[in-house]
């Protein structure tokens, strides 16, 4: 029996296996997505982003409990960085969620960023599509702990929760740029620690400039550790979902997400084809740029021309095991 049939039959091993195949761009995973993708589009995808150590995973664990208490099942995709040098990764987000293991209504998957910058992983969108198709009404995506540049989550989540904590950096200056702007909700976590009121006040000032017609960005003090403020947070997440559906903003975001997914995929595909193509010709181009015989732009034009000539090439070759 194929994995999709096993998924439909309720085999608990099917979804994890499908996610692995999707993550590895295995042809079987890509063809599974052809079946799964059209089934999706129902889940509320919620991004949880914020600096390293701000309590994202602890918050996800607390949110899971609140979501379960509201009678819904929930899936989590938790992303941690891959080492750019070795390609390996320590996936540690799950530590905070281990207590939830006995609940069949909770599915948690860790994923390495595998070279992608911006807070997500190359296969994050594919994995979310599979979790969506598997029927989870709400999917939490924890990004890599990032500073200002980790804003790719807006291409995947309908609702973005930005987590901030007191005592990081020098006040608003540290948080003003980039990341706040992608937040539909701003959370001040660790409100059991000193400084959280000041931070919440500063964030409320910034939040006045954020938001869209019909949605004021709330600033919510919580403690993921004690559970303080968690019901309010889930309430605000659900309210944002209703706002998206009622206002048409949800449709606008879906179109933007679709276009971002295609562009990201296109970029990755071009990189793979370049990597699989005639490396000698590419090396010559790069040499020419380094020696200033050619501009980077001309090299790009050369590479694009080479792409037109290269035979179609798809999937990464080679396997680590048995080698």
């Amino acid at each position: 029996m194929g994995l999709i049939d096993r998924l439909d039959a309720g085999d608990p091993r099917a979804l994890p296996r499908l996610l692995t195949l999707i993550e590895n761009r295995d042809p079987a995973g890509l063809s599974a997505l052809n079946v799964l993708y059209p089934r999706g589009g129902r889940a509320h995808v919620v991004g949880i982003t914020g600096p390293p150590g701000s309590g994202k995973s602890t918050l996800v664990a607390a949110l899971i409990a609140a979501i379960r208490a509201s009678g819904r099942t929930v899936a989590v995709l938790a992303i941690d960085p891959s080492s750019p040098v070795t390609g390996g990764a320590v996936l540690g987000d799950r530590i905070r969620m281990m207590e939830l293991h006995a609940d069949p209504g909770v599915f948690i998957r860790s994923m390495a960023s595998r070279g992608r910058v911006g807070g997500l992983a190359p296969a994050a969108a594919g994995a979310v599509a599979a979790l969506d198709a598997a029927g989870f009404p709400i999917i939490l995506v924890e990004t890599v702990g990032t500073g200002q540049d980790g804003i790719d989550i807006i291409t995947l989540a309908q609702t973005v929760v930005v987590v901030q904590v007191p005592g990081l950096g020098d006040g608003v200056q540290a948080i003003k740029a980039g990341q706040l702007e992608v937040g539909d909700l701003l959370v001040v976590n660790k409100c059991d620690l000193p400084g959280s009121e000041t931070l919440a006040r500063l964030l409320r000032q910034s939040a006045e400039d954020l938001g869209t017609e019909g949605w004021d960005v709330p600033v919510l003090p919580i403690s993921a550790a004690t559970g303080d403020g968690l019901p309010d947070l889930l309430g605000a997440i659900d309210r944002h979902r209703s706002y998206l559906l009622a206002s048409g903003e949800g449709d606008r975001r879906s179109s933007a997400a679709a276009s971002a997914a295609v562009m990201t995929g296109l970029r990755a595909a071009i990189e793979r084809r370049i990597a699989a193509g005639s490396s000698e010709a590419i090396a010559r181009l790069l040499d020419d740029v380094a020696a200033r015989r050619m501009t980077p732009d001309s090299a790009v034009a050369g590479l694009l021309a080479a792409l037109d000539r290269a035979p179609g090439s798809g999937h990464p070759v080679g396997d680590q095991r048995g080698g």
Partner: protein
Amino acid sequence: MTQPAPAAPGRPIRVLIAKPGLDGHDRGAKVLTRALRDAGFEVVYTGLFQTPEMIASAALQEDVDVIGLSILSGAHLALFPRIMEALRARGLDDVLVVAGGTIPGEDIPVVRDMGVAAVFGPGTSFAEIVEFLREHAPARDDAA
């Protein structure tokens, strides 16, 4: 000490590192976790005090190739059969299970009989562990 060579590009091996039982020493497990990362593995680290059910459920959802159990409490003879049983109950018979920590020599055959593929004692080099995992991680052949 020499680092193991980074893995060739391709599908990284996924490993779950867990500390079953009640001893609170996770330094060894953390050091091994980082060494495996440096060798190109993707390592799900699950922390201290894991029950057999927690380990098996995480291994299932994370679809790992390998489970590494780190144990210093001396409770391996009690814990390992329960862990293996929890894995079997979820159909995870094909996952490679290895163990490290303080397991006395006379217990090693017993533990291996339970289905633990290798026991890495305190002196084992990371390179040796990496080699073993690369060689023995189960092959896969999935159809969607």
